[in-house]
């Protein structure tokens, strides 16, 4: 249990680092896919209990350290999206392309909605997406395209991340 948690934490931390370094080379209008968010959705959907949410919380705090976002913002976003994904756990069959793409699409929109709500509450302190701006829609599309590939890669790591009965 602890081993799985630590491996998930390590993997998502590496994805955050890749997101902030290498992915800059494939950015579209300075927008990069949110790999860590997609990985949290995958782990939360496939794992029972709090594994996805708690890893999301811990890696979110870590991400806040290197981001200009207020401390706690990514922790909240990743925990709550992990919780949403966990609610759907076992209710869908994940195929190779369509469902991962849909998960990437919906998770990014959910993130945008959470940010909009938080930006209203903490006015001026938190940035939110412009509904008609290109950043949101490029990120939504990018995450939807990247999710099937990432889910496929994570699927091959299931034995390290997901409990046996849920694989």
């Amino acid at each position: 249990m602890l081993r799985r948690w630590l491996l998930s934490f390590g993997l998502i931390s590496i994805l955050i680092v890749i997101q902030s370094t290498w992915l800059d080379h494939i950015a579209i209008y300075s927008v990069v896919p949110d790999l860590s968010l997609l990985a949290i959705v995958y782990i939360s959907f496939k794992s029972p209990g709090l594994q996805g949410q708690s890893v999301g919380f811990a890696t979110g705090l870590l991400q806040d350290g290197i981001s200009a976002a207020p401390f706690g913002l990514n922790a909240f976003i990743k925990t709550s999206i992990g919780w949403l994904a966990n609610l759907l756990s076992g209710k869908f069959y994940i195929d190779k392309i369509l469902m991962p793409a849909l998960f990437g699409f919906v998770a990014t929109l959910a993130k945008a909605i959470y940010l909009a709500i938080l930006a209203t509450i903490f006015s001026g302190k938190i940035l939110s997406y412009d509904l008609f701006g290109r950043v949101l829609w490029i990120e939504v599309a990018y995450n939807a395209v990247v999710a099937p590939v990432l889910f496929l890669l994570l699927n091959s790591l299931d034995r390290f991340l997901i409990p046996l009965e849920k694989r």
Partner: protein
Amino acid sequence: MAQRYRSATRRTMGSALLMAVSLITLVVSTRSLAGFPERIGLSVLSFLQRGFDGAGQFVSDTVNSIAELRRLEESHRELLKRVENLGNLERSYADLKRENDRLKEQLGFLSSAKYASVSAKIIARDPENLYSTFVLNKGALHGIVKNQAVVAYQNGIEGLVGRVVEVGRTSCVVAPIYDTSAFVAVKLERSRYDGLAVGAGTSEAPIIIRYIKKRAKDEIQFGDLVVTSGMQSLYPPGISIGRVTKLKDLDYLTSLELEMEPIIDFGRMEYVFIIRNETTELEGQE
């Protein structure tokens, strides 16, 4: 059935607890009570970022080395020509400098020393698409403190990049001038009118300059150079920021609004210089 219900309740309660903790952290941090945990996170992840940046650089350098060699040969030939021209220019420059020093002395000006700076490499960008900060490979260990100005050189021109907003042990976070949180006191170099530059959030969007007096309208030309005014203690005066691309004279505003294109192309920026300024160092230490 009851067990499944209990398990679902437990998961929801656990998630709610984690969300509550992160919300409390958010409340505290938005009131600027945080700082220490962020520095820890920055120090830990920047260590990894440095490694990933190095590995990425190695791969890209290896792949590009052949094309680079050809390019170097060409630039070597060009540089030889330039050295020849510069030799000639240097002689006339020395004469002009001597003349300038003489004139300055006559006018009673002190020869002002240029600021000291520390070079740094960009090792990572903000992982969040909404934020535009980037991480440099220099930190408190190299004498970097919060609010120091950052400049870069492109095509032989020095341009303002932004300011240090967070400092870790061996890395720091810089908010660029196009960030929505960046406000820079500026001056139009030719007409000497003051204004305030505000970022639009992305490097592609122009920077807006506000509070320029309406009477300056006839004196402003497209392409006018905009420099730091030095009115704000954060940025030393006279650093180039950008060139005027658009002028808006809106009836309902009491001042002009200008759009400016930054002098620095942020997309191809790799190395920068952090200006070590005594005033900001004192402020940063406080």
